[in-house]
């Protein structure tokens, strides 16, 4: 490669806060060649975003500044440019794509105008020409009807479309470098695959360079040319993709690769045999199911309904689901966002009203004997939530929270509560001192453990975990999964584990249920389903997982799924049906 397009040299960023100086980025040097895709990986807080924002002088606070080093771009040092010159660089030479398209797009401005705005400002063209150019860009990023969609607002798009618009905004002025800060973290796997595909296509068409920030090594493996691994603001490793993945030098990189969910789980405890061993579902003696779901339907009124809104539109979140859960089962429920997983979970636990159908827990029918079934459910089931912080009352210490549950449940005598709290903490691997802490003093992983402890405090037969690891870093995900596996074994728990990450489900669960638009499209033993998906949707889902093996390329998504996606353009995120007619799956 010739001279790099962009060269970060010994970049150091410090923050001065409360009189104390902290180094956020510590002498990081990375080069980016023309046409190269550089993957920047690292756990949350490692400084990935910070580096990229420093390139265009958009550091989040005035207390944070570049204190040493240089960023050379076309012969000038970007860290030394003044505001006016920088403005020409921003957008003009370096475009940015952000993680959360919803908050980065202006909700009150038409999406087309947000693209045209940059074009007009940087290229000084007329309003009409800008509109034309913006429409052109919209079609390039794959919007099916750019002329019309120019006038849409961001909230009328699905997440994937919004990210496409975001990319369009970044492309608006023909930048030489595109910085994509976790562009797919908020999206479903299938959509993620499309967006990554789009980025690579754009690179191929325009020959620009991309810095792709992610915490998922799989994505890097699938898309990038070279990899830089960051931790605590320091660059641990930097090199061509294959060499880093094949022969990682730093122990952190090694553990990162090892804990990637798409890695065959055998690396640690040979769970391949393990899972086969404990799931001879068919050979188990016939016992009564703990939970039986029969033709369950849950509908919600579509938002904004009122007396006068007439038609009574409803959203069918769960649409005729039937399944059985045996004591001791571990069932994974997967499906894209909005497919009704959470609703199903809540319906099972009696937290949301059933529209029709039956849920029978331990012999008590929730539809027929609501009070009796609820009494049972409240004392024998528990739930673990996705967002570890939001799931804990911020005003209670962990100890108080657990003690309260024990007191209300009344299963432990009053003088035994203290000891029991300590036992619970031990059980989930939290130190006992955490009993006196409030959630905001805990890390996400610790909070999630506290949440699990709370679930265990009920001494439940059934635990429902709703995306309980989605918000955590991979390494911590791994720990929590191991904790579950351990607990399940020790306490003979029945576990319903909801996730959109198929790889995790494959690791943990014996059986898997695939949901799509409120329906179960496929269920069966994990190994069988993964090895040999019968439903095209399942197949698409599985193939969209970015594998850490760079040679398993991301697939071009099968046509039905893409066509299916495009009806999001109508502005309806979820299928809205009028009472009786239910849209069938495009099989």
């Amino acid at each position: 490669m010739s001279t790099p397009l962009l060269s970060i040299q010994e970049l150091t960023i410090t923050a001065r806060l409360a009189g104390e100086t902290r180094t956020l980025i510590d002498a990081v040097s990375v080069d980016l060649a023309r046409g190269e895709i550089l993957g920047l990986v690292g756990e949350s807080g490692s400084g990935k975003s910070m580096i990229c924002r420093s390139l265009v002088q958009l550091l989040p606070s005035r207390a944070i500044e570049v204190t040493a080093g240089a960023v050379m771009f076309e012969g000038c040092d970007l860290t030394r440019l003044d505001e006016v010159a920088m403005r020409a660089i921003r957008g003009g030479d370096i475009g940015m794509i952000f993680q959360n398209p919803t908050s980065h797009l202006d909700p009150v401005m038409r999406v087309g105008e947000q693209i045209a705005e940059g074009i007009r400002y940087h290229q000084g063209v007329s309003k009409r020409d800008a509109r034309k150019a913006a429409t052109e860009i919209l079609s390039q990023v794959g919007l099916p009807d750019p002329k019309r969609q120019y006038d849409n607002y961001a909230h009328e798009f699905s997440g994937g479309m919004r990210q496409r618009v975001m990319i369009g905004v970044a492309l608006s002025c023909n930048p030489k470098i595109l910085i994509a800060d976790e562009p797919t973290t908020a999206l479903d796997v299938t959509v993620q695959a499309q967006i990554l595909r789009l980025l690579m296509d754009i690179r191929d068409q325009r020959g620009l360079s991309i810095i792709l920030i992610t915490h998922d090594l799989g994505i890097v493996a699938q898309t990038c040319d070279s990899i830089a691994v960051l931790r605590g603001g320091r660059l641990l490793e930097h090199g061509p993709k294959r060499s880093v993945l094949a022969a990682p030098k730093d122990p952190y990189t090694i553990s990162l690769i090892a804990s990637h969910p798409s890695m065959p789980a055998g690396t640690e405890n040979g769970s391949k045999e393990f899972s086969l061993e404990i799931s001879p579902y068919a050979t188990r003696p016939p016992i009564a199911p703990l939970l039986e779901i029969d033709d369950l339907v849950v509908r919600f009124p579509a938002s904004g309904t009122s007396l006068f809104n007439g038609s009574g539109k409803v959203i069918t979140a769960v649409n005729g689901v039937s399944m059985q859960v045996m004591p001791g089962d571990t069932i994974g429920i997967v499906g894209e966002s909005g497919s009704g997983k959470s609703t199903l979970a809540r319906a099972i636990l009696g937290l949301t009203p059933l529209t029709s159908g039956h849920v029978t827990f331990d012999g008590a029918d929730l539809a027929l004997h609501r009070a009796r079934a609820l009494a049972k459910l409240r004392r024998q089931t528990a739930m673990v939530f996705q967002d570890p912080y939001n799931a804990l009352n911020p005003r209670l210490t962990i100890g108080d929270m657990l003690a309260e549950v024990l007191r209300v449940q009344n299963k432990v005598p009053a003088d035994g509560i203290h000891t029991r709290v300590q036992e619970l903490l031990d059980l989930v691997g939290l130190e006992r001192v955490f009993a006196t802490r409030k959630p905001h003093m805990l890390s996400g992983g610790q909070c999630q453990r506290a949440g699990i402890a709370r679930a265990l405090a009920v001494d439940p037969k059934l635990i429902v975990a709703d995306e309980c690891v989605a918000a955590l870093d991979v390494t911590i995900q791994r720990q929590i999964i191991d904790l579950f596996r351990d607990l399940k074994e020790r306490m003979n728990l029945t576990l319903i584990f909801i996730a959109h990450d198929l790889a995790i489900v494959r690791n943990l669960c014996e059986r898997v249920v695939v949901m799509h638009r409120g329906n179960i499209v496929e269920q069966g033993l994990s190994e069988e389903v993964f090895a040999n998906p019968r439903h095209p949707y399942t197949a698409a889902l599985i193939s969209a997982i970015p594998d850490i093996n760079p040679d398993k390329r991301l697939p071009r998504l099968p046509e039905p799924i893409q066509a299916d996606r495009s009806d999001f353009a109508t502005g309806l995120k979820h299928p809205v049906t009028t009472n009786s007619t239910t849209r069938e799956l495009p099989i």
Partner: protein
Amino acid sequence: MHRYKFILYRPLQFLPVIFGVSLITFILVRLIPGDPARVLLGARSTPAAIANIRAQYGLDEPLWLQYFYFLKNLANGEMGKSILYKIDVLKLIATRIEPTITLIVCSVFLSILIAIPLAAIAARNRGGIPDHAVRLISTMGIGFPPFWLALMLIILFSVKLGIVPVSGYGENFGDKLAHLILPCLTIALCLSSVLTRSLRASMVVELQSDLATAARARGMPESIVFWRHVLPNSLVPAVNLLAVNIGWLIGGTVVVETVFAIPGMGQLLVRAIFSRDYMVVQGVAMVFACGTVLVNFLADILTVTIDPRVKL
């Protein structure tokens, strides 16, 4: 458009509100001790004369019947006859409504005119001297009793400097405007303080928001970021604040109308309450209630227009 469909059915939702207001006012004014007839007759009243007047205005009927008549009149678009002024309440209100509306509209307008720049300066210099200055002014601004502020303004601008009229309400447009400057300023000083604080707070948030960062990242200068992205996104809370405050604002005009001798409904209301002119109190209360409801309706429309996400 679908999002504006609420314009069709929302007015129906106002009916119970208006009904509730009418019932409460009706009961409330009749609970007040004191007798309109006696107020009318003054010191020389005799029981016979009082009874005569009460009969004339139907005040001797049972309460529920009076309320029934009131509703019946209302259905016919009438509000009864003023005891003090001896003319139809609606006619009376018609002669007094314009100054109040003008006063409120101008005050709100002026407040916005004051609040937006102040909030912008404060938010863009967050933590700096301008910010502290604006916050100081706006906290002080709410602290002054309006009638005192009004008096000070009159002494300064009208008596000492002689540049605006002391009080009253003009005849033609320009004249009215001149007369309204001080009253509007009085209200606006209070109102803009509240508005500024709210706007500043949301602007501070929006200036650091992701959408502002994204706009900067595509090279937009700070002015475009502010006027085209931050401001529109900060407006919705302020609009709602204004709408909620409208009732309070209407109350505030009473004092201002009195100090500045503006012949509006606030003055009418106070005199009507003090002279127990039941029909007028009811009428004015109804008009004020409708006004509040209307303003909230307008605020809803405005919110929907500003923010395409909002559905009502």
